[in-house]
């Protein structure tokens, strides 16, 4: 059953990668991608750890949470992309105004 742990660790890796990119990158589209990667990591951890049952059938509750999560994540991304485009239309830059580049 160590496959569950292997996939959960991959999920942890995805989450950390996404977090790093979220901090490092200034470009907002890249930040949106980073948040999506983080979300995928969380989903992977949830479902992988839900597979630790002794029976063949995995736990259905994390599956249900992840399904709604996937759909909500895409709608949140759509909102974020629109916000980004609005910001670009206003300021001409795809970066947050607080982000100073020296």
């Amino acid at each position, binding site marked *: 059953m160590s*496959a569950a742990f292997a996939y959960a660790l991959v999920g942890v890796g995805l989450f950390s990668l996404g977090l790093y990119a979220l901090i490092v990158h200034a470009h907002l589209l890249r930040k949106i*991608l980073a948040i999506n990667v983080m979300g995928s990591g969380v989903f992977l951890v949830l479902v992988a750890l839900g597979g630790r049952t002794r029976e063949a059938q995995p*736990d259905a509750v994390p599956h249900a949470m992840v399904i709604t999560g996937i759909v909500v994540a895409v709608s949140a991304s759509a909102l974020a992309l629109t916000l980004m*485009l609005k910001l670009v239309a206003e300021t001409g830059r*795809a970066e947050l105004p607080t982000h100073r580049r020296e």
Partner: protein
Amino acid sequence: MEAITQLQYAFDAPLGLGLLWLAWRTLACQDLFEAVVSFAAFGLLMSLAWVRLDAPDVALAEVAVGVGLTGALLLAALAKLRSSKMNEDAAGQLGKEGSEVGRPQWLPLVVLLSVAAGLGHAVWSLPLYSAGLSPEVALHLETSGVSNPVTAVLLNFRAYDTLLEMVVLLLALLGVWTLGGTARRPEAAPGPVLDTLVRLLVPVLILVAAYLLWVGAHAPGGAFQAGALLGAMGVLMLLAGWRLRTSLMALPLRLTVVAGPGAFVAMAVITLFIEGRLLEYPPQHAGTLILILETVAALSIGATLAALFLGSRPQDLENR
């Protein structure tokens, strides 16, 4: 049997490494277009991982969203980003990125490593076996009205969660509409080939969405998968240059979008009066009620997702 287990592990290794590698490419490569395409490929690999983890319900949702919606959304946003760059000719590098790519920053790197180590340790120290909530689900599956445990959780045991999720979708759309439309580029005519493709695919998409909705009661499928499929169909139609008549874009679209959360709230109120508990169906009617809710929810999710892709408020489009 031994060989099969080994083959499965041999399957896991490239899959896991491929996921991490593609995520890294998505976040670290120079070109934003390459990043978006890598992310689309990442979604495909994720769906293989769900199948490997015996989560076909999740795989269906991931495929419908990841293959059908995310890529199109990101590519359309990237195109608008580039065209606004062309219009304004601003100094900000919109399509390309600044100089920080490639140069590691030490403080975030320390954060990354400590977060990864902490979470990894937390995951690793979990017990090897844990039934989670699956005994509870199995215990009450009889009275839930459906035999697919995931659907039972989504629309019966934790239906209030799903209610709120529908509200989140609606809020996202309201947010997009409130922001107003973004400038649209003039579009070329789709051409006969693309038009034929869409004309052939749309009936099959509707059929498969209905099938997933129906089959969700006893096998993987359900409202979210069917809804995401309908949303992807809307995206495909919008990409081929199809537009609804303006009379359909105003009130009917709004009603469809609100119908999902509305149906959930109505069901919650009715069950509150009949059974005395929020969204607790009478067991003999549970199956029918779930199917009704799911149908409305799927249509509503599909309309919301397609409207999210369209971006601007329908009447803004009319005025243009």
